[in-house]
C-alpha cells in the first residue's frame, strides 16, 4: 500500500449530510471489474454527476471547472453511511480523491478508506462548514493536509488540528498491510485456535 504523509490538493465542497455509499457508487456498477486503466472513476457519484443521457449535470460540484481536479472532498456528517461496498473507495480513489474531510463517517466506509491508503479526516461540524464556505468563495483553492502533524491548513493559512487513532496513523504513514501484521502472529494464532476449538470442537 502507498504511504500517506502530506497532501496539498484542490478541495471540493459537498454540502450534504448522510452521503451514503449508494450515492457514491450506484449498485449497478459494483459488478464491474476494477480495471487498472479505466478503474471506477466514471462511476463516482454517477447519478448526481450525469443525467439519464450520460451528459454531465453542470451544477454538480465535481463538474464545475474549478473543482474537476479535486484531490480532497469536504462533506457533511455521516459520510459513507449505508452499504459496506468498498467500490465507494475505489471510485473516490480512481477519480483522484485521496482524502475526505467530514464531521463523521460511517464505520465500515471509514475502515475501507484506511484499508486503501486514503485518509478520512474528522473535524468538527462548524470547521467543516467553514472550510466548505471558503472553498465555495474561492473555487479551485487548495487545502493542505499534514498527517504527521495532524493538521488541515485552510485557504487563509489557519491550521486545524484533527484527531486520528495512532495505530491507523502509523499504518497510513508506513503504508502497512494488515495481512503482514497478522502473519507475524502465526504461532500465537495457532495456539489460540487449538485451545479455543478444544473447548468448542463443533466450531472447528
Amino acid at each position, binding site marked *: 500500500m502507498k504511504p500517506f504523509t502530506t497532501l496539498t490538493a484542490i478541495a471540493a465542497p459537498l*454540502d450534504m*449530510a448522510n452521503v451514503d455509499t449508494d450515492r457514491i457508487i450506484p449498485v449497478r456498477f459494483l459488478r464491474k471489474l476494477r480495471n487498472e486503466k479505466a478503474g471506477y472513476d466514471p462511476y463516482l457519484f454517477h447519478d448526481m454527476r450525469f443525467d439519464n443521457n450520460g451528459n454531465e449535470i453542470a451544477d454538480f460540484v465535481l463538474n464545475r471547472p474549478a473543482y474537476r481536479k479535486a484531490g480532497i472532498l469536504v462533506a457533511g456528517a455521516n459520510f459513507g453511511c*449505508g452499504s*459496506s461496498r*468498498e467500490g465507494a473507495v475505489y471510485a473516490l480513489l480512481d477519480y483522484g480523491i485521496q482524502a475526505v474531510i467530514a464531521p463523521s*463517517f460511517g464505520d465500515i466506509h471509514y475502515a*475501507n478508506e484506511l484499508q486503501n491508503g486514503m485518509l478520512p479526516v474528522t473535524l468538527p461540524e462548524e470547521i467543516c462548514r467553514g472550510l466548505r464556505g471558503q472553498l465555495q468563495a474561492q473555487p479551485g483553492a487548495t487545502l493542505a493536509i499534514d498527517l504527521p502533524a495532524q493538521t488541515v491548513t485552510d485557504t487563509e493559512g489557519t491550521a486545524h488540528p484533527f484527531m486520528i487513532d495512532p495505530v491507523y496513523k502509523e499504518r497510513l504513514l508506513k503504508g502497512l498491510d494488515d495481512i503482514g501484521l497478522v502473519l507475524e*502472529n502465526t504461532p*500465537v494464532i495457532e495456539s489460540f485456535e487449538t485451545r479455543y476449538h478444544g473447548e468448542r470442537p*463443533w466450531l472447528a
Partner: protein
Amino acid sequence: MVSPRTLFDKIWDSHVITERPGGDALLHIDRNFVHEGSFHAFGALAKEGRKVRKPRQNFAVADHYVPTVGRERGLDATEDADARHMIQLLEENCRINNVAHFGMDDERQGIVHVIGPELGITQPGLTITCGDSHTSTHGALGAYAFGTGASQLKQILATQCLWLKKPKTLRVTVNGRLAPGVTGKDVVLAIIAKIGTAGATGHVIEFAGPAIRGLTIEGRLTVCNMAIEAGGRAGMIAPDDAVYEYLHGREYAPKGADWERALAQWRALPSDEGARFDREVTLDGSALEPMLTWGTSPEEALPVSGRIPDPQSLGDADKRAHALQALAYMDLKPGMALTDIRIDRAFIGSCTNGRIEDLRAAAAVLKGRKSMIPAWISPGSTTLKAQAEAEGLHRIFLDAGVEWRASGCSSCAAMNGDKVPPGLRCASTSNRNFEGRQGKGARTHLMSPAMAAAAMVTGRVTDVRQLLAGH
C-alpha cells in the same frame, strides 16, 4: 471479583488472540460468509498467491445477483452477462478454495442473513463477518456480527482473523408490550427515527427490555438487521431459551454431547447484572404504532398516523437540507397525511423481512383480498419458500394477484434487475430508502410486511390495524 460484563464484552474477550500497543486487538472470526459481491476479495487473495486458510469456517451463497423469476432455467434466467459471470465466479472461487457453496440450484440457497440462522451456522457467542453491512442481523441469536469491505474480507479469508479496535457499547431498552399490529420492523424504525442514522456510530447496540424479549426470533432478526441503519457497528440480543429451541436440530448446530456443552457456554453469555454500557437509550414500546419512512434516509420515519413534517421546522441545518431534498425526490408536500400517499408497487422480502413470520403476516392481510397494484414476494430462502408452500401461503398470495418469486435479495438493492421503475412509489419491507436504491428514480417507503400487504390491498399507505380489525 470479576467486574460485571456485557454480552458484547464476553464475546470480545473470548475472541482476542493478541493485542498491539494502541488498543488494536487481533480477533478470531468463527464464521465468515461470502456472496457474489465478494469477487474483489477473492481476486486480491489469488493475486497474492493465497488461499482460504480455514475453509470449514467459511460459507458461500448466491443471493445478491440471482434472478427471482425463471429459476428453472438456471443461469440462463440471468440476462445480464456481468451478473451471470459473478454467480459463476463465486462457485469457481469456492471450488478452488474448498468452501461450502449454496448455489442457485441448492435447496438451502437464500439470502445470506436468512440462511445463516436457518442452517444453524449462526450461533450465540460467535464472531461472524460478511462483506455486507446487514451482517448485523446474526446478532439476534447473541453473536457479534458485522459487515466489512473487500480488504478486510480478504484478510479474513487469508487468516480467519481481523485487527479491530474495540467498539463502544450502547444499550437500547424497549419497555412495555407492543400493541397488536406493531412488529420488530416498527420497533427498529422507531429507534432509528429517535437516535438517527449516525446515532450509534462506533457502537455495538444491545437491544434489551421486555418488548425486545417478547419478540420472536424472526422479529429479533429484523431489529438487529437494521442496527446498521442507526450507524451501529453491530446489533445484538442476549440469547435465551427461544434461541436454543430455534437452533436445536438445525444442520450446522452442535449435536449430542456438543449441544449440551454449547448450551452451558451460551447460558453464560447474557450481560451481567450491573454491567456498564457507554450509552443508554430507552423507548416505551407500548406507545409504538406501525411505522413507515417518508424520506430518503431510514431516520426519516414516522408513525402511520403522522403527517409529512415541514423541513423548515427542523432545527438542525443539515437535517433540514436533507429533508428538503428528500421531499423533492419523493414528490411529497409538508403537512400531508401519510395515509394519503398513493402506492404504485409493493415488495415483500429481503434479509430484513423475508422470513416465515413475515410471510404469514402478509398472508393474514391478503387472505380473501386482492392487490390493487403490481406486487411481488421473494421469500428469504428456498427452504422457506417450500415451508410457505406447505402452509399454503403461496395460494393466498397468488389468489390476491401477487407474484410469488424465488429467493434472493431481489428489490432491496435491485442488483438482479428487480427494479422499481423511475418515479414510481414502492411500499417495501427492505432496509434502505436511499435515492435510487430500488432503481434510478425509484421512491421507497420502508414498512413492515403487514403494512406492505395493506398497501397492496388499498393502493395507498394504510394502517394495517384497520384492515385486521374489520376482517
